[in-house]
């Protein structure tokens, strides 16, 4: 758990928006609505995402209450993604063997809808035998300083987490990369004009600002 032990790798976000009245209750309801739901081996879903308690991310039955996500002036949550990922060679071999059986039974090659039905049946069987792959990413929202830390650098995961966070808490997030930090810094009008026309500086060429 990156939040409580071990090395930490994270990205920073600025949180824009005010806390609503009764925010603890509202947040509890909003988080519960978007909590992680485990994948059902009998359904066709191959992916599930949602919030989990940061201290027990695999306790699927446990409700996520204030006690789980509020620590002092911080809101801490886990974001969990589960996905069924079937090894391609395994899937290919199983489908091929079923198609061979079909050919022996019917004397015809399986094509189109029949082939798709065979693939779906093989995947349904594998879902019952293979555990989904799980990833849990932690976040910590410093509500006093309006800053969020997401403990991953994966662009695809942070994009999804940011969307879910904004929807859950009705706020907007701005990624505090070096560009954003420069853009929001307090600059004179001259400096801001210079920033807007800045180009990369090659150390071994003459300096220029103009674009």
């Amino acid at each position, binding site marked *: 758990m990156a*939040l*409580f*032990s071990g*090395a*930490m*790798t*994270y*990205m*920073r976000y600025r949180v824009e928006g005010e806390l609503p009245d009764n925010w603890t209750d509202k947040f509890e309801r909003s988080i519960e*609505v*978007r909590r992680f739901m485990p994948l059902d081996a009998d359904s066709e879903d191959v992916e599930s*995402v*949602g919030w989990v308690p940061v*201290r027990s991310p695999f306790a699927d039955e446990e409700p996520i209450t204030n006690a789980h996500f509020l*620590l*002092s002036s*911080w809101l*801490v949550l886990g974001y969990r993604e589960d996905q069924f990922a079937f090894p391609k060679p395994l899937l290919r071999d199983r489908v091929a063997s079923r198609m061979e059986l079909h050919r022996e039974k019917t004397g015809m090659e399986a094509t189109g809808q029949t082939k798709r039905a065979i693939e779906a049946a093989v995947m349904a069987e594998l879902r019952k035998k293979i555990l989904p792959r799980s990833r849990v990413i932690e976040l*910590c929202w*410093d509500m006093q300083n309006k800053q969020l*830390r997401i403990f991953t*650098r994966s*662009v695809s995961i942070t*994009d999804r987490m*940011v*969307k*879910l966070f*904004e*929807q859950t808490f009705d706020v*907007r*997030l*701005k*990624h*505090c*990369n*070096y*560009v*954003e*930090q*420069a*853009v929001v*810094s307090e*600059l004179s009008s001259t*400096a801001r004009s*210079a*920033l807007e026309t*800045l180009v*990369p*500086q*090659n*150390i*071994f060429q003459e*300096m220029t*600002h103009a*674009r």
Partner: protein
Amino acid sequence: MRADDKDSPSTHRRIQYSQLNFLGAEFLTWLYFHLEEETVQLKLGDAPVELRIGNRMSLGKLEGNEVRVQVASPALSDSGEVLQAIRSGAYVDALALDMVVNDRLYSFTLMAKDGAISGVKIQQFFPDEDGNKTSRENKSAELETTLLLRMSSLENIEEIVDALYKEFISRRLMLSVFSSDVSSIRQAVLGGLKAKLGMVQ
């Protein structure tokens, strides 16, 4: 997710300022030479801060798919590869740093591309010396204290890094000032190459 949740425009803001994406790499390159060549005095509150280059960095061109240079060494300043890469037009895109404040050591790596702070290692604040089992209430208080101390440590790192970036940006936006910085970096690179590798400009 709820059925009525809508897509947010957050991804659009990332694209809007993409023309300034080089700022992170320029900052880390500037920072490397700033720490190497000058005595940098920093403070957290009243506490002096010692910041030094760590033992790992990587460099690459701003654009293109040319091979990146990764250097790991207890003495990066002795590495001719770093200077050679910069002479070839590469910038620092990841820089490991060690920060000492109040006898506590923080090690971390700054990443140019996304502004991430990576691999932060700090002291363990709660060694369980007597091995006693803690009650549920005590465990919760312990977690809260651990979180407080770890997040405070990240705040310390961020305060220093943000102050250095602010200094870089203010210098970067003044042509005459940054010209002087670039000239110093150029001399450091060429002088270093000459001394270490016997290379001619």
